[in-house]
């Protein structure tokens, strides 16, 4: 039987994480709690120190929503030592389409693969956060982190970059900041023989992400799921608490942060 866990959120996390909507859509697994809640959502400046406070205060799991990195490096070591699961809920990575695509990305020979990722997001967005969310998407979808990155354009309306993934695949990234289209992310792997194409929609809606696998014989659209990345991230946190597993989301965020700082 599913254990129901209580949830509380910092004021900023309440807004950015659409907490009430998520709890309403997972009423058996989650319910709103008070200061002693088992699961805590943190976000915004100071999220890392807040996370340390709740981790040492008896929380069973933490959801870090779209974390900025102002105080993260200072607290990284302490947070990485936490014995509870900490899920990092960035813009795209936990969309269920990403998990659905993962085995298909992994099946391609990385030496023959070009990974191309395109993000469109709101004008005025913080470019470093946009890039961190894009790196998290690539890591989760392909199972391989981007480890080298050369940024060729970095300006108010977007960026472009070329790099390589841990598995050897070459990576081309770009982002465009615009208000004319809903935010979205796309990641495709192209080889001579096959392609995997992932699209991730606006994270504030439950619009479906899509995964299309194509080769010489045709193209297949995988079954779609009407679930926001936020809801899927909470499910993941709940599952990990239940099975007693931690995550490597924080170490991944720290590595991506170092990459972004060194590249920009």
């Amino acid at each position, binding site marked *: 039987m599913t254990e129901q866990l209580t949830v509380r959120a910092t004021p900023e996390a309440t807004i950015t994480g659409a907490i009430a909507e998520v709890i309403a859509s997972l009423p058996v697994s989650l319910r709103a709690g008070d200061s002693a809640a088992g699961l805590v959502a943190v976000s915004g400046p100071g999220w890392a120190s807040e996370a340390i406070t709740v981790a040492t205060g008896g929380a069973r799991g933490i959801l870090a929503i779209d974390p900025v990195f102002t105080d993260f490096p200072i607290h990284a070591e302490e947070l990485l030592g936490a014995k509870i699961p900490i899920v990092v809920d960035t813009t795209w990575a936990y969309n269920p389409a990403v998990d659905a695509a993962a085995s298909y990305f992994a099946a391609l020979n990385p*030496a*023959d*693969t*070009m990974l*191309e990722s*395109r993000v*469109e997001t709101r*004008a005025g967005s913080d470019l470093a956060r946009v890039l961190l969310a894009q790196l998290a998407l690539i890591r989760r979808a392909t199972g391989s982190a981007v480890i080298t990155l*050369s940024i*060729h*354009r970095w*300006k108010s*309306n*977007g960026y*472009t970059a*070329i790099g390589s993934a841990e598995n050897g695949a*070459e990576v*081309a990234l*770009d982002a*465009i*900041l*615009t*208000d*004319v*289209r809903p935010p979205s992310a796309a990641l495709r792997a*192209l*080889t*001579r*023989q*096959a*392609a995997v*194409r992932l699209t991730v929609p606006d994270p504030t809606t439950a619009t479906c992400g899509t995964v*299309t696998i*194509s*080769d*010489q*014989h*045709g*193209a297949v659209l995988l079954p779609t799921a009407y679930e926001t990345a936020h809801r899927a991230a909470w499910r993941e946190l709940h599952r990990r608490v239940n099975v007693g597993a931690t995550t490597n989301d924080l170490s991944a965020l720290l590595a991506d942060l170092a990459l972004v700082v060194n590249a920009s």
Partner: protein
Amino acid sequence: MTKTTIGVGILGAGPVTQAIHLPTLARLRDVFHVVTVMDVEATVAESVAGRVGASWTTSVEDLLANDEVDVVVICSPHQFHAAQVIAACRAGKRAVLCEKPFAMTQKEAEEIAAVSDETGVPIVVGAMHTFDPGWATVKDNWGDLVALAHTIRYSIVLPPNPRFEDFATEVITRPIGPLQDRRDPDVAAGMVRGGIMGLAIHDLPLVRAFCPDFTNLEVLSCHVPATGGYLVDLRIGDKDVLVTGVHTDSWEPEWVFEAIGDEKSLRIDFTPSYVQAGSATAVLTDGHEQRVFGPHSGNGYEGEWRYLAGLVTGHTAPPDIQELIDDLTFALDIADKASHSVRQSTLALKEAHA
């Protein structure tokens, strides 16, 4: 018996003639008829000409001397284009359609312009998407998009041409491309130059339409992907431009042109080359409102031939030769700078691994 339709002479009878122009002309039988087909391979010339009941020759001069040929279409290898365009103009033909690029150097382009001006023979470059009804209709309706767009993305994912040619016709001869090692700086530079002048050039006139300051051009990066092709990141004036072409044996083609501003954007999905699959579909987004243009039943190939007919009958104004020269200058500038960039980066990589 004298035919009342416009007579066409074709120089070069390879896949472009077989899979593009002959099927298109078959849709326009009330306007054109093929008089003669020239190819250096006599068997190819005879076979292709036989499909449309035309005469054949292996001689450019014979074709140009034929008075029944009103319009010359040049589908020969790129290096012959300029000389053949000039010869066709001097032969007093009524119009010339030359596959892109119509020249390979700025000097050739200027010579062509001078001859076209001197002889009064109009020249059309076969950049089919500039004649695509989807492009043409959205262009008439996009308002201030050129000023507002800050980013241009032009992306092609291209399965092998036979995938499309074989639906357009039964091709009897095809060039075979050698396998190439992109780790060699000269090879990488050649791949990029070939990709720009052979593939990207299709829509570079569209890119230029969004880049009024097109001579102020900088290549930020250029890369040959593992699949073959090119990734070129450009700053053109104050516009950010990404030009991507990827070769694949996979099934799914993509040919997308996008112009994106903060509050207005355009996306055009083009149908594949070769096939008679109608026009592009253009989506113009302004705020939260979208307008869709196309698809129309005719594609850009049909558009360029209808334009030629208008030139011959005097119903259409001739193209501005300076625009064609500017298109070529723009393409050559990108090809030169992108191939230089990739040569340098590949060389640096090679030296780092030595």
